[in-house]
Structure formats: structure tokens, C-alpha cells
């Protein structure tokens, strides 16, 4: 991540004289290949629920390894996790988290809360602190109106607005100005799109498309993936036409709203209270 590079955080552990006191047998082998990093993900809470948005570019030291990665992974109908950091670490750790949450649900007859899930993830990652596992996840759900940011260096924070990744400074710039509790759904969605668009515009490691999810009491709802290249052309046209309308109104974009999860949400609504 750009922030990592700026602050001098080393990807592979530095072999200092101190590590000769540790119990590990030999210094870690240098990897001859890079792993994927670099992203923009964001999530915020408002009166109509929680919005989570992310770009879709998986980059690997200068090469775009995948232009259509999925960075927001649903764990169950009321919990999403946005991933940032190393692609493989995030994918596998979220699979492990989903398994543990499911096991909890089967053993205890009720769903684990977001607070509990965040603590669980943080404690599972703790043994790997100091290694080069790099997971920075934001858990978004409905049971508390807060988000949890969990990082593999041990951070676990509650909040109402998070943006994670190399493009996060740019997204924060857009979000800090506009996010309020009283936003309506359309405004919140277009604000999230705008923030990801601005971040992808300026950050080299973010780009391609934007994924948007909206969580309410009924469950989560996914918008179609939108290619941000079209957004760039639309904005150019508007600028050339000399329009002065506000960006929020104009970016009510052409993406279709697809609540494909409605049936699941209905069933999810029943599952939410009951026992399997």
C-alpha cells in the first residue's frame, strides 16, 4: 500500500540481531515474487443503513493482476467484510471467519454479533503479528450501527466511517466533507461512488470498477458493478458543457439497482431471529 511505503513499513520481517534470540530456526526465505496489494475500500453508516463500496483492481507491484476482483465479501445476509491488504490473506482469512461464525451459530443457536465477529477476527490474526500477513478488513453489519476496522497488526476500532487502502486519503477527502447521518439512500450511494471514483482517479493502485453494497435490517443489497471509465467520460462531458449543478445530483448514475438478494433477504429476515 502507498501508506506502507511512505511510512517505511517493511513487507518481509527485517532480520536484525534481535531475531537470533527468537525461537524460529532460520531467517525467513525471501520471496521471489510480489503479492497483491493496493486498493480503495470505504464504508459508512447513515440513517438508512450501512453503505460499503470498493474498487475492483488487484495490483501486484505495478501490474494489474486482476481488473475485476471482488473486495467486498458477504459472510452472511447481515454481515459484509471489505478486504484490503494482501489478496490471498484476505480471501482465506475471511473464509476462516465465515466458518467460525457459522460454527458459533450452530453451537449457540444465535448469530454472533458484529462486535464479537470483529474480536474473533482480531484474536485469530494475533498469532501472525510480526509476520507478513497483511489483512485490513472493515466489518459492516446491521445489529449495531457501527463499523469495525480490524487489521492484522492488532488494531480493532469502532467507528461510523472508515476508508482503507492506498486510495483511502482521497476517499476520506470526499467523505469527510459530505457524510452526515441524515443522508437519504440515493445521496449516500452516489456519495460512495464519488469517493471511490476520486480515489481511483488519483491512486495508481485503485481503479477499474466500483462495487457497492447497502445493508439494511432486511439484509444486504448489491448494486451492479459499474465501470468507472464511463464515469470519467461523463464528467468530462459535463465539464465541457459548463454545467454548474452539484456533483451529488449529477452522479445519480446509470447503474441499475439490483436487489437480487431480496428472496434471500426475506429468508434472512426469518433466520435473523430464529434458530436453524
Amino acid at each position: 500500500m502507498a501508506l506502507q511505503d511512505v511510512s517505511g513499513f517493511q513487507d518481509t520481517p527485517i532480520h536484525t540481531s534481535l531475531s537470533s534470540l527468537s525461537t524460529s530456526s532460520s531467517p525467513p526465505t525471501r520471496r521471489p515474487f510480489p503479492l497483491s496489494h493496493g486498493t480503495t475500500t470505504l464504508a459508512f453508516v447513515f440513517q438508512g443503513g450501512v453503505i460499503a463500496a470498493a474498487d475492483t483492481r488487484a495490483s501486484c507491484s505495478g501490474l494489474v493482476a486482476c481488473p475485476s476482483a471482488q473486495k467486498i465479501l458477504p459472510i452472511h445476509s447481515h454481515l459484509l467484510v471489505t478486504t484490503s491488504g494482501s489478496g490471498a490473506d484476505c480471501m482465506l482469512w475471511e473464509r476462516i471467519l465465515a466458518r467460525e461464525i457459522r460454527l458459533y451459530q450452530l453451537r449457540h443457536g444465535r448469530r454472533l454479533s458484529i462486535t464479537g465477529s470483529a474480536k474473533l477476527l482480531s484474536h485469530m490474526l494475533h498469532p501472525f503479528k510480526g509476520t507478513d500477513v497483511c489483512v485490513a478488513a472493515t466489518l459492516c453489519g446491521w445489529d449495531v450501527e457501527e463499523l469495525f476496522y480490524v487489521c492484522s497488526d492488532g488494531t480493532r476500532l469502532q467507528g461510523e466511517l472508515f476508508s482503507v487502502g492506498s486510495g483511502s486519503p482521497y476517499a476520506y477527502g470526499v467523505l469527510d466533507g459530505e457524510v452526515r447521518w441524515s443522508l437519504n439512500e440515493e445521496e449516500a450511494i452516489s456519495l460512495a461512488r464519488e469517493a471511490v471514483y476520486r480515489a481511483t482517479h488519483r491512486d495508481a493502485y485503485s481503479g477499474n470498477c466500483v462495487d457497492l453494497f447497502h445493508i439494511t435490517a432486511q439484509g444486504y443489497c448489491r448494486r451492479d458493478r459499474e465501470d468507472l471509465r464511463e464515469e470519467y467520460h461523463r464528467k468530462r462531458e459535463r465539464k465541457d458543457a459548463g454545467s454548474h449543478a452539484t456533483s451529488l445530483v449529477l452522479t445519480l448514475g446509470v447503474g441499475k439497482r439490483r436487489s437480487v438478494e431480496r428472496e434471500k433477504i426475506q429468508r434472512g429476515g426469518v433466520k435473523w431471529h430464529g434458530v436453524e
Partner: protein
Amino acid sequence: MKIVSGHFYGDNGKMKEYHYTGPVEHRFSPYSFNGGTVLAVAGEDFAIVASDTRLSEGYSIHSRDSPKCYKLTNTTVIGCSGFHGDCLTLTKIIDARLKMYKHSNNKSMTSGAIAAMLSTILYGRRFFPYYVYNIIGGLDEEGKGAVYSFDPVGSYQRDTYKAGGSASAMLQPLLDNQIGFKNMEGVQHLPLNQEKAVQLVKDVFISAAERDVYTGDALRICIVTKEGIKEETVPLRKD
């Protein structure tokens, strides 16, 4: 890496003094790069996995007949490029796990299941990874072509086409254009049929062999359809 340092020539052209900078550790690297390119394309009812057959190391060619596609089941082929030692071990482990699954569950693993299993096998070695770039090509449960591409530590996803290995950075944009119709205006998005796909793969590898030193010698194409797996070998540049 030098134990002894010093400028070899000073201003007046005479050799200067050497001095000892301290002990330098020369580390043995367990990895090596053996080159090779792998490509997979998924069609409506077929999948193609192709690889070159050159095995190189540094400036030498160890073998001109070492294909990188391995047949796993009747409906799945995997292509592995990178470090040949890890490719061999990984395919042995996958074969063993396939057999175990077959014996416990009385059916063959589907392509999607193999992909998920490979992801966990690779991540099991997160701190000393298999230096292999894998691409799985096969048919899914509905008979449609499926391609799963991996990074060396197990991150994977399903694609329509993917190139991996030494020439991947050259081939992937070409595939994006020809199969994904990206960055083209006013073009009909025709679905790919099998003959066109095979011809495209051959052309793409000929281009790769021109510009990448680690790719060449011959091209092995495995075409997976519901009738089975067909193999074809096409010669490439040997220089």
C-alpha cells in the same frame, strides 16, 4: 556480493587500496525460476489450456519438451509455471488429494472444488510458498467452460481467460482485447467458438515466443470438452 570493497581505479588511474567491510552472508535461495508461459480460455462448452514446453534456468535451456499442462480429471487440466520443482510437488499433492476424495466420496472432484482445494493447499504454505503460478481450465457442473487463476499463495477467482508465467504481462492485454473486446469501439461481441479460440491461442503463443526469451520450442494445447481431453502440439521458435 563483495566481501572486499573499494574503488578499483582512483583519479590518477592507479588501483587504490582494498579494505575489508565485514562478513557478508551468502544465502542459499531455495527458489529458481524455470520460465514458461501458461494460458487458459473458457468457452461456452469447452476450455483450452495451453503452455509452451521450454524448461530454462538462467541462460540455459534444460529441456525443449517439458509441457506445463497436467491432466487432473476428465474435465480438468491445470497449467503450472514458475519453479519446476514446486510444480512437480504441487501436482503430486493435488493428484493424491484427488484420489483421497474419490475414495471417500465415490465421485471425481469438480473444477470448482479443485480450485477451492488448491487455494487452501497453497495458503497452507503461506510463509514458504510454492513458487508456482497456476491456472486451472475445465468444465463446471453445468458443462460450461471455466478458468480459475491463482497467485502463488492461494488467492483465486474464476475468469474467462487468463495468461500466467513469464510472458503473462505481454499476453494478457492481447487476450483482453481479442476475447474481452476491451478498448475497442463499435465492435460486435461475438462469442468465441472452439476453432477460433484454438487459432487465437496459437497466434498468441507465436507472439510470445518472439518477444519472451523463456517461451518457445513447442506449444502444447489441451482442449477440454464433454467428450474428453484432446491434446495438440505445435512447434514454436527454438531460439
